[in-house]
């Protein structure tokens, strides 16, 4: 858990509700303004959380992915009323297929980025705390699966270092020998994974995990600050849902682009959506300011 991030110190319900709302809205709203807001806030938050690493990831992985996804659509869809030119195959290249490709790409990127932020904030203990009572088996499996990749990576380093000591690492010897060594390491890892999963399950069982009447230790307290945040999230979420249901975010890409852009209603929904998405960044900046103010005062 990143101590620098005050939003993650909120109650898990707040964290989960926030990410639930933001992810669902990002996936559902195809209005260009919503996509832009969601993408901007996701990138801003990921940079706040992970700093240089996030910038590098966004530029090296997300930008090419964005371009690829944006070009993918016009290559295969030729629907749309505004013909720009004709492709060598003879089918038209339309403005609508390009904009739809960009919109779909923005959606994919923002959802992926939101999930990368989610993984930073919603640690597995928070997840188990939230869902351990309702769906004990499911939440244990989920948290084990989510923990699997980082744990696997750490363990493979341990194993390969140990193998290196006896000269049997994947970096030792000729190409055939290296492949052989790599296979051995992989086989060790497989055994470890299976054993580890059973051990975890057994250990949880022997502790009475999921039995009725058992409580679990947690350090989460639902205080005033959390109540305010929950009320804020529910109000703003309800406003956005109501606005979208009333058609305030109507937008179509095919056959010609058309939709509601300006007006008091739509603008207030964009504003609400922005206020929702940017919430953790605002909270964090405010807390940071408070912290520096206290420090300089002392």
């Amino acid at each position, binding site marked *: 858990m990143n101590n620098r991030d005050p939003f993650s110190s909120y109650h898990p319900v707040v964290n989960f509700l926030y990410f639930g709302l933001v992810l669902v809205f990002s996936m559902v709203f195809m209005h260009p303004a919503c996509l832009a807001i969601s993408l901007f806030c996701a990138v801003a938050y990921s940079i706040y959380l992970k700093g240089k690493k996030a910038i590098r990831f966004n530029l090296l992985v997300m930008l090419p992915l964005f371009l690829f996804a944006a070009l993918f659509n016009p290559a295969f869809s*030729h*629907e*749309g*009323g505004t*013909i720009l030119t*004709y492709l060598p195959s*003879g*089918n*038209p290249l*339309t403005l609508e297929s390009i904009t739809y490709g960009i919109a779909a790409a923005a959606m994919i990127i923002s959802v992926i980025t939101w999930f990368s932020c989610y993984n930073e904030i919603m640690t597995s203990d928070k997840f188990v705390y939230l869902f351990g*009572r*309702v*769906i004990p088996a499911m939440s244990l499996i989920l948290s084990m699966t989510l923990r699997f990749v980082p744990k696997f990576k750490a363990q493979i380093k341990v194993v390969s270092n140990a193998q290196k000591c006896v000269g049997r690492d994947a970096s030792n010897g000729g190409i055939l020998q290296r492949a052989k060594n790599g296979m051995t390491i992989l086989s060790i890892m497989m055994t470890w994974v299976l054993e580890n999963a059973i051990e975890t399950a057994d250990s949880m069982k022997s502790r009475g995990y999921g039995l*009725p009447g058992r409580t679990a230790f947690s350090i989460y307290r639902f205080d005033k600050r959390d109540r305010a945040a929950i009320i804020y999230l529910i109000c703003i979420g309800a406003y956005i849902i109501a606005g979208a249901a009333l058609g305030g975010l109507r937008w*179509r890409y*095919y*056959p010609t682009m058309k939709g509601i852009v300006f007006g008091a209603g739509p603008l207030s929904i964009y504003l609400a959506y922005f206020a929702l998405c940017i919430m953790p960044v605002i909270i964090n900046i405010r807390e940071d300011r408070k912290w520096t103010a206290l420090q300089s005062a002392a």
Partner: protein
Amino acid sequence: MKNFLKKHKWKIIVTVLVLFVLGFTFWYGGNAPGLRGWNAAKSEAASVSASPTASSDISPGPSTAETQVPVSPDAQASAEPAKADESAVPLTSSDHPLSASEKVSLAKSIGGDKSSEGVEKGNTDYSASQGMTINPNTGKDQYQTDPVPSGKPVPVEPQNTTITDKVGTCTLSVRCDTILNNMNLLSKDKWELVPKDGVIFAMSAVSFHEGESVFNVLQREMKRAKIQMEFKNTPMYNSAYIEGINNLYEFDVGELSGWMYKVNGWFPNYGCSRYQLKDGDVVEWVYTCALGKDVGGYCSVGS
């Protein structure tokens, strides 16, 4: 019982919630039978009276009134002659996308097993004498094409033809009258694309080079008239397949809809890239909402 309920309270609640969400999304996604614009045809009579899906019913009746699209008189006059048995066609009676075989059987059930009126059977001897290579085992040529009726041109493979400088003239038109009677099946976003009289490209004389196919002419003229047209090459049938013209695509008006073409009043039983044009040919592209039944081109080589 009480203990059981208490023990599995959460499991039951979660299951019910999941089922509810799934049901809601199914309904919201528009897959509920009532939302797709069709009546699950419980009885023939019910669907005739209730569904405004009359395909060839060109009289200004309740069906056109319900779609709220005024049909101009000349559109009605120039539409295909109506046939009694096709006056009311329940387009489909299912609440899920149909498979190809289901569509064919549905189309059969709509108007019996018959082809449209005036459709002739293919003639194997004639087609063979015209140069079609028919596989005796399947009764079709190498591109899955049945023999053509006698007197009709056989398919010409585009890769075997040379386009000369000799210029000919043919007549081309593109129209979608049948959609006017089925507007309720078309997404509202596309209503503006359907012309009031159903004419997308008015009948006009166009020139072509000898050796060119119906597809070449359609593509060039659509490009020239700035009308959107999308096609897909299907190697299996050695032809281009027209998916949409003027942003009106196949399946836009129900599961049985799409573009068809006829030359001199005949719906060829092969793709438009394989129909070589002759001077004076009349090429008509028409949109069907019922596998060709509403334009008189169902089962193009008879059955």
